[in-house]
């Protein structure tokens, strides 16, 4: 983003801040109080963060964290009757829908990155994952070089597809890059043999493989290409709302109340197929829970 836009946005932020006095609500908090509802953007197949179970209810790790945030908002606004409205989003629509006001919080598997912080804001990271690829075991693809000239797929609007496109051009790998509308469609490309590999965050890949028709046919690559910290997304330039959300998540992580929530989704049986991901919190994640951060810089998480 260039300097003049930064100045415009800064002036907007200052105008917002200037309008705030002790009692007066601004921005998202005002919108929530006036409409009596908060709209949460969720995913349809980001297992186990935010997805539909087979009764078409939205469930997930990020959804549980968001419900705690909503409780904090209710307390802050002293309005226990605030309703939760659910709005499905995809990787490609989440940022525009946040910017245009359709959703107030996005609870899914969105990577917090410095680039994205030009458009939206993130609260404290709730998961740390890495970008890998999944392919059919029979094909024996181990490294990026193995995929030279092959057809690969990633999901529209993700940091993964951005990285993939740039890497393909920079290293001259000559890969044909397909775009899936969402993770399920992209994984289907590998399943049906249209693409040789699907690049995505390893936790999502593990869940998709575990839930597929023949999990033993697939293997998630060992190479990790980038670190992806997940954060719950909200509108930028809204310091009052960010404060409430940050406090809610920081309290949740530091107090250890996050532990049973984590265990429920990553170490227990989850719908719809009762699979158990059996994934203990990684050292990076333990550090993030001990010292909550909303940084978009991957180096912070190493």
């Amino acid at each position, binding site marked *: 983003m260039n300097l003049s836009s930064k100045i415009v946005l800064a002036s907007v932020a200052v105008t917002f801040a200037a309008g705030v006095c002790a009692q007066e609500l601004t*921005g*998202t908090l005002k*919108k929530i109080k006036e*409409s009596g509802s908060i*709209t949460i953007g969720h995913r*349809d*197949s980001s297992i186990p963060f935010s997805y*539909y179970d087979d009764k*078409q209810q939205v469930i997930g790790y990020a959804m549980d964290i968001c419900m705690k945030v909503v409780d904090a908002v209710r307390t802050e606004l002293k309005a226990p009757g605030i309703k939760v*409205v659910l*709005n*499905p*989003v*995809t990787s490609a*629509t989440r940022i*525009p*829908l946040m*910017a*245009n*006001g*359709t*959703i107030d919080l996005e609870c899914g598997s969105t990577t917090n990155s410095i680039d994205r912080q030009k458009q939206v804001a993130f609260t404290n990271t709730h998961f740390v994952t890495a970008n890998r690829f999944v392919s059919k075991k029979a094909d024996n693809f181990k490294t990026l070089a193995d995929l030279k000239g092959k057809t690969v797929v990633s999901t529209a609007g993700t940091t993964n597809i951005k990285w993939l496109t740039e890497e393909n051009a920079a290293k001259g790998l000559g890969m044909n890059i397909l775009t899936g*509308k*969402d993770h*399920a*469609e992209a*994984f*289907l490309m590998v*399943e*049906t043999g249209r693409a040789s590999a699907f690049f995505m965050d390893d936790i999502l890949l593990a869940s998709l493989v575990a839930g*597929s*028709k023949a999990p033993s046919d697939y293997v998630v690559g060992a190479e990790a290409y980038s670190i992806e910290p997940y954060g719950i997304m909200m*509108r930028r330039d809204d310091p009052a709302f960010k404060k409430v959300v940050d406090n809610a998540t920081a309290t949740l992580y530091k107090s250890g109340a996050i532990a049973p929530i984590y265990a429920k989704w990553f170490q227990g049986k989850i719908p719809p197929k009762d699979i158990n991901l059996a994934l203990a919190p990684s050292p990076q994640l333990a550090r993030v829970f001990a010292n909550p951060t909303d940084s978009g810089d991957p180096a912070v998480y190493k």
Partner: protein
Amino acid sequence: MVDFDFDVIQRSFVYLFREGMTFTLTLTAMAAAGGIILGTLLAMMRLSSYKWLSLPATAYVNLIRSIPLLLVIFWFYFLVPYIGAWIIGSPTPIKVGAFASSVITFTLFEAAYYSEIMRAGIQSISRGQVSAGYAIGLNYWQTMGTIVLPQAFRNMVPILLTQTIILFQDTSLVYVLSLTDFLGAASKVAQRDGRLVEMYIFAALVYFVISFGLSQLVKRLQHKIAIIR
């Protein structure tokens, strides 16, 4: 021969119809009603002798008819909250849900097509009818409302219904917004269970049966009206 599991249709039947088909039908009905009303207004504006009415209406209809429905869907999905905010003077974009955004999109899109149909309908009513209306002391709105529009509408009912069937099929395009209309629901089940063939063939079949059935009804209606005239 690959294993096909047509049971998946039976298992997801309730979901497909309760979530998917109700979305599709509700969207079709609301967009058709809104579109016909707005289309009739647009047709009247185009036929008006005031340039400040006919020019914008003509420009609107020609613009909408030159661009693909998918592009209009994307435009409105991202644009409606900004327009809403601008209209009511709010500092932040207002919240419009996905369903509301689709209804607005399809209403505004189909209005352009319905307006062409209604324009043909209004023009098919002889000028003598309008003159007769003025002769017995009715003003413009009364003439249109009690004499011209009812006849125009009746003449155009088969074509309006055909356009509505096309609208019913076009609602499948909300797939690109990952909304759960009938095709969206079928896709979700197909992708989740890996049953592409079964679900897409079933979806094609359902759309075919409904569209074909409705177009046969329209044909019968056309026969009835033809005989009466």
